[in-house]
C-alpha cells in the first residue's frame, strides 16, 4: 500500500505546484493579494509532499520492497544500507525525484530567507519556482513513476550499478543537483524582475547570495565527481571532457560569469540586460545538463542506460523554458541603460573580459559536446569530438582570465590608479619569473610545470598582496568583509587548481606493466613490489585483491590493496588503491590476469606517481569556500521589512564596500 501513497503524494505535489506556478503570478499581474498569498502555503505543501514521496521511496529501499520495480532494478538483499539509500537516486526516476526534492529545498530556503522581499516580487519568484517544479513533477507523474509495481514480487532484486557503489557517489549527485537547481533561484529572480517591467538594481543584490551559494555547491559537486572518476572510473585520469562532465561544467562556467556580472550590475548599475540574460543561460545550461545525462543522446563513457523517449520530454521542456524566458527577455529587457562611465583601465573592463572569456569557453564546450548531434542531423556521419579539441581551446581562452585575476581587486571601479597597477604588475611579474626559473631548473625545463608554477605565483602573490594591502589600509574589523574574503579564497583556489593541473600533467609518471608475483618496478624513486593476488569477499561482491608494497630507499612507505571486483550480477569494477599526500599520490590499479585461468600468476598493473594531483581538488574546495563565504555577506541580507506592495524605498544602504 505504501508505494501507492508515494505516488499519491507526487500527484498532490504536482497539483500544488500547478497552483504555486499560476495563481501568484496571476495575482501579481492583477494586483490581487489573496492570490499572491497562495504562493507560500502552496510551496510549503509541495515541499512536504515531495519529501514524503522521497521518504517513502527510501523506506522501500531500506525494507527491500522488491514489489516496486525501481527498487528491484536497483538494489538487492546483499547491498549495504548506505548504498541502498544512495540507490534512491541511482537511476532515472529516483534522480528526477531528487531533482524536485532539491528544488524544494531551495524553495523552502527562500521561504525562510526571502520573507523580507517585496510582496509582489516574492510572489513572482515563488510562482516561477512553481512553474519549474510543474515541469519536473509532470515528468515524474506521467512518464517516470518511481513507484511502479512489479508483480509478482521477485525474491531478490538486481543490483545498483557497481560504478555507483562508492562513497563519492553518495555525495556527488545530491551536491551537483544543489548546484544545478540552485541556479533556478537566480533564474526566478531575473524572470520576476523582467515580469515587473522596471528592472530594479536591487533584485541583483537579492539574487547574489543565491547565485554564489548555488555555484559553491556546483563546484563541490564537480570536485566530488572528478575525484570519484579519478579513483573509480578513470584509471587515474580526473577529467575526460566527456559529455556528462561537460554537462556540469557549462553551467559552472556560466555561473562564474554570472557571479561577476552581478557584481558589476549591483555596484555600478551597468550590464543589467547581460546579467538577466546570464541568469537565464545558467539555468538553461543546467537543464541542458540534465537532458544530456538523462537522455543518452550522446555516447559517453558514463552514460547510464537511459531512455530516448524521456529525452524528448526534457528537450520539449527545455525549449519551453528557454524559449519562453528568452521571449520575455526580448520583450522586456531593459534598454541600454546608462551605467556609470568607466575608463579602459578599470575593474569593469577586467570583469567584462573575464565574462567574455568564460562565456566563450562555455560556448566552446557546448559546441564540442553537441557537435555529434549536429553532425548527425546534417548527415555528416558518426562523429565524436576528441578531448584535444577542448584541451587546446580551453587553456587558450583562460589565459586572459588568469592574467587579469590578480589585478582585478586592485583595479578600482570606473578608474584605476595606474601607478599602483604598474607596481603590482612588476612585483608579481618578478615573483612569477623567479619561480618559473627555479622550476625550469628543477624540472629540466618541463614547459607545463614552469607554466603551472608561474600561474600559481602570479595569481597567488597577487591575492596575498591584496590581502596585505587591505590589512594595512582598512580599519580593523572591516578589513575583510565576507564578500571580499570569498573572492580572495576563490581566486586563490584557481591558483592552486591551475598549479595542480599543470604540475600533475607534466610530472606524472605512469606505467602499465606486466608483473609476476615478487617482481618489482621502479617509478620516480619509488619501488613497487607486486606480491600477488588473492580472493576476498565483500558484502555483495567477490574480488581479486592485489598486494603491492611500495618502498623508497629500502623503507616501506605503503602496502596497497587494489581490487578487481565482481558484483553479484557479474558486473566487473576496478577499485584502485591510492596512497595520497599533499605533494604526491601513489596510485595502483589492477588490470587483468595475463592468464585468466590463473589469477595467482602475472597481472597487468597500472602504476602511477602523480605529484600535486590533490591540488586540483584542494583548489576546487577553495573555490567552493569562496562561493559560500561570499554568499554569507551581511550586506546581501534584506534589511527593512517590505510591508507594502510598493517596492520603492527599499534597502537603501549607504555602505560602500571595496569588493
Amino acid at each position, binding site marked *: 500500500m505504501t508505494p501507492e501513497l508515494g505516488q499519491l503524494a507526487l500527484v498532490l505535489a504536482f497539483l500544488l505546484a500547478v497552483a504555486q506556478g499560476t495563481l501568484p503570478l496571476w495575482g501579481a499581474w492583477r494586483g490581487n493579494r489573496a492570490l499572491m498569498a497562495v504562493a507560500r502555503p502552496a510551496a510549503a505543501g509541495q515541499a512536504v509532499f515531495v519529501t514524503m514521496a522521497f521518504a517513502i521511496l527510501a523506506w522501500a529501499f531500506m525494507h527491500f520492497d522488491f514489489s516496486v520495480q525501481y527498487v528491484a532494478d536497483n538494489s538487492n538483499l546483499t547491498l549495504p544500507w548506505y548504498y541502498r539509500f544512495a540507490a534512491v537516486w541511482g537511476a532515472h526516476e529516483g534522480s528526477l525525484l531528487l531533482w524536485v526534492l532539491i528544488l524544494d529545498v531551495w524553495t523552502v530556503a527562500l521561504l525562510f530567507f526571502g520573507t523580507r522581499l517585496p510582496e509582489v516580487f516574492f510572489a513572482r519568484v515563488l510562482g516561477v519556482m512553481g512553474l519549474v517544479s510543474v515541469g519536473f513533477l509532470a515528468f515524474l507523474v506521467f512518464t517516470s513513476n518511481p513507484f511502479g509495481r512489479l508483480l509478482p514480487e521477485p525474491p531478490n532484486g538486481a543490483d545498483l550499478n557497481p560504478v555507483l557503489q562508492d562513497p563519492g557517489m553518495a555525495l556527488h549527485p545530491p551536491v551537483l543537483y544543489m548546484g544545478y537547481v540552485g541556479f533556478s533561484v537566480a533564474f526566478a529572480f531575473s524572470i520576476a524582475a523582467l515580469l515587473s517591467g522596471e528592472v530594479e538594481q536591487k533584485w541583483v543584490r537579492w539574487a547574489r547570495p543565491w547565485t554564489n551559494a548555488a555555484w559553491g555547491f556546483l563546484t563541490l559537486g564537480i570536485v566530488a565527481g572528478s575525484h570519484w572518476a579519478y579513483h573509480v572510473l578513470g584509471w587515474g585520469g580526473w577529467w575526460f571532457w566527456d559529455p556528462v562532465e561537460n554537462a556540469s561544467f557549462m553551467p559552472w562556467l556560466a555561473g562564474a560569469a554570472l557571479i561577476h556580472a552581478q557584481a558589476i550590475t549591483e555596484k555600478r548599475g551597468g550590464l543589467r540586460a547581460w546579467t538577466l540574460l546570464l541568469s537565464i543561460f545558467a539555468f538553461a545550461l543546467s537543464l541542458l545538463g540534465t537532458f544530456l545525462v538523462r537522455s543518452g543522446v550522446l*555516447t559517453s563513457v558514463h552514460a547510464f542506460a537511459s531512455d530516448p523517449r524521456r529525452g524528448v520530454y526534457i528537450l520539449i521542456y527545455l525549449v519551453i523554458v528557454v524559449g519562453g524566458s528568452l521571449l520575455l527577455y526580448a520583450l522586456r529587457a531593459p534598454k541600454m541603460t546608462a551605467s556609470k562611465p568607466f575608463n579602459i583601465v578599470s575593474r569593469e573592463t577586467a570583469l567584462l573580459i573575464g565574462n567574455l572569456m568564460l562565456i566563450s569557453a562555455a560556448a566552446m564546450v557546448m559546441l564540442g559536446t553537441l557537435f555529434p548531434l549536429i553532425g548527425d542531423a546534417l548527415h555528416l*556521419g558518426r*562523429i565524436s569530438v576528441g578531448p584535444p579539441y577542448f584541451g587546446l581551446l580551453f587553456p587558450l581562452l583562460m589565459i586572459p582570465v588568469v592574467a587579469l585575476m590578480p589585478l582585478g581587486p586592485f583595479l578600482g571601479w570606473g578608474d584605476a590608479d595606474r601607478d599602483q597597477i604598474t607596481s603590482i604588475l612588476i612585483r608579481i611579474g618578478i615573483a612569477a619569473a623567479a619561480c618559473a626559473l627555479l622550476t625550469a631548473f628543477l624540472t629540466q625545463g618541463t614547459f607545463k610545470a614552469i607554466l603551472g608554477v608561474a600561474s600559481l605565483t602570479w595569481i597567488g602573490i597577487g591575492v596575498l598582496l591584496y590581502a596585505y594591502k587591505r590589512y594595512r589600509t582598512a580599519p580593523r574589523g572591516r578589513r575583510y568583509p565576507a564578500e571580499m574574503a570569498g573572492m580572495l579564497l576563490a581566486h586563490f583556489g584557481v591558483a592552486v587548481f591551475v598549479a595542480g593541473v599543470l604540475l600533475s600533467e607534466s610530472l606524472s609518471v605512469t606505467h602499465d606493466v*606486466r608483473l609476476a608475483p615478487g617482481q618489482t618496478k621502479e617509478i620516480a624513486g619509488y619501488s613497487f613490489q607486486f606480491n600477488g593476488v588473492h580472493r576476498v569477499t565483500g558484502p555483495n561482491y567477490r574480488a581479486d585483491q592485489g598486494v603491492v608494497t611500495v618502498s623508497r630507499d629500502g623503507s616501506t612507505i605503503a602496502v596497497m590493496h587494489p581490487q578487481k571486483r565482481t558484483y553479484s550480477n557479474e558486473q566487473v569494477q576496478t577499485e584502485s588503491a591510492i596512497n595520497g599526500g599533499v605533494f604526491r599520490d601513489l596510485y595502483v590499479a589492477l588490470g*587483468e590476469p595475463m592468464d585468466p585461468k590463473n589469477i595467482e600468476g602475472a597481472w597487468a598493473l597500472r602504476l602511477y606517481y602523480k605529484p600535486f594531483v590533490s591540488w586540483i581538488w584542494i583548489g576546487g574546495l577553495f573555490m567552493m569556500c569562496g562561493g559560500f563565504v561570499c554568499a554569507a555577506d551581511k550586506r546581501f541580507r534584506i534589511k527593512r521589512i517590505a510591508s507594502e506592495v510598493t517596492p520603492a524605498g527599499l534597502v537603501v544602504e549607504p555602505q560602500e564596500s571595496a569588493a
Partner: protein
Amino acid sequence: MAMNPSRKRRLTILSVIVVASALAISVGVYALQQNMNYLFTPSQVLGGQAHSYKTFRLGGMVKAGSIKRSETSLDVHFTVVDADGAMPVEYTGILPDLFRDDQSVIATGHMDGHHFVATEVLAKHDETYMPKELKEAMAKAHAGKPGLGSRE
C-alpha cells in the same frame, strides 16, 4: 568625416571584438577539424569508407576467442567484427573491465597496413547497453544484406 572621441573609442572596441572573434572562430574550427573522430565498423573500413581519415574510431563486437595476450608484454591482439566484416586490432596496455568476447567496443586509433592500431579502447559499463551510435552504424553497415542475421 571627423570622428569624435566616443565614436573613435567605439570603433576601436568594435574592431578589437571583430578581430578577436575571427581569431577565436578560426582556431575553434581548426581544433574541431583536427579532433573529429568518425565511427566506422569493420565492414565500412574494408569497404574503404575510412580511407581518408588518419584517426578514426572502430566500433563492433569482440570476436569470441580472438583475444590473444602476449606472453611477455602488455601487447594484445583481438578482432573486432560486425555482421559482414572483421578487423584485427593491436593494442598495448590495460583493457577496460567489461572487455571480453562478444562485448561491444569502440577503439580509437589508425590503420597500419591491414590491421588497426588502437590507442584507446572503450567498453561499456552497462552490460546490456550498446552505444546508440554503434548500434546504428552496425545496422547501417549491414543494411541491404539480408539473411546474415545480426549479431545484436
